[in-house]
């Protein structure tokens, strides 16, 4: 075996590179994997998560009837567009949805702190939604009933719970598909509410 130009110095470099390249690749891969696992733990990274197509846009046109028995007004796009000068949340929930139970205390806390939360009861029997809210409290300032789930599709919803954050101008800035846990509340919702205030 004879190389064309057996330059010993170049050959040594090549051997060193061949040794170091896999090590560097393994190191980078390990760092990436660690970041991924950490993100999974804190909820920053969700491999099944899909960005909302509505980010940076105004909410779609809709008008939903109120839920009888709550005394709350219904919800329409106009209520979100006029803006109260403060950021607000739009929360899709259902009484049959287990993660909604998990996030409910966080929504109640936000409501107590004075954050405006608009509710949409998704594909739920009105009596069941009412029972859910009577048992756990009502964090909503307005509540629309979307029994056929058509308005939810206009929002690009693909499951409950989902929560959208609108800035004070009524533009959608953030969407959480899944429950707003205590971690999500502390690490994402609270800073975002401050940023878009």
């Amino acid at each position: 075996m004879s190389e064309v130009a057996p330059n010993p110095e170049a050959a040594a470099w090549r051997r060193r590179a061949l040794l170091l390249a896999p090590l560097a690749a393994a190191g980078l891969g390990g760092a990436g994997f660690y970041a991924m696992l950490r993100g999974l733990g804190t909820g920053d990274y969700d491999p099944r998560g899909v960005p909302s197509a509505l980010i940076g846009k105004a909410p779609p046109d809709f008008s939903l009837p109120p839920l009888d028995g709550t005394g709350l007004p219904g919800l329409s796009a106009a209520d979100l567009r006029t803006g109260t000068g403060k950021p607000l949340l739009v929360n899709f929930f259902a009484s049959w949805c287990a993660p909604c139970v998990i996030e409910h205390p966080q929504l109640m806390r936000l409501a107590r702190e004075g954050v405006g939360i608009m509710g949409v009861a998704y594909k739920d029997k009105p009596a069941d939604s009412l029972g859910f809210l009577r048992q756990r409290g009502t964090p909503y300032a307005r509540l629309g009933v979307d029994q056929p789930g058509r308005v939810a599709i206009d929002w690009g919803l693909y499951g409950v719970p989902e929560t959208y954050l609108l800035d004070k101008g009524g533009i959608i800035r953030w969407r959480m598909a899944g429950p707003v846990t205590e971690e999500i509340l502390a690490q994402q919702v609270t800073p975002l509410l401050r940023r878009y205030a």
Partner: protein
Amino acid sequence: MIRWLLLLLLAAGPALAVGDPADQLPNPAQEERARVIGRELRCMVCQNQSIEDSDADLARDLRRIVREQVAQGKPDEAVLTFVHERYGDFVLLKPPFKAATALLWGMPAIALLGGALLIRGMRRRQRVASGPPELTQAERDRLAQLSGRLRE
């Protein structure tokens, strides 16, 4: 036995979720169009199925919307755009070509090019390596001796 089972598997057609005849359009041409559109749309809940293949609630709602719009006479593009506007690129099983998806679409070409370069490099090295080894001084002397003897 296993072979028969495999053959049986091959013979089985894909199970379509639109089993409910009430959901199908009465016009077969429109129903066929709706199915073609539906196969382009991802079910956001199951993520690896089209809405035509999925049993999820949301997939059924989207199938209904697609059929409604087809029945209204909307062109295929408009129906796809309607869903795309709401659910983003991810809902399209064939994502559009743009800056964010360039790597996705370019990957086959990049892989092919990489493979071709690798093969070329290996061939070249092989050609260099497989040339006949040079004769040593002793062999050369012996060759000269032999050819000298032939000429005598």
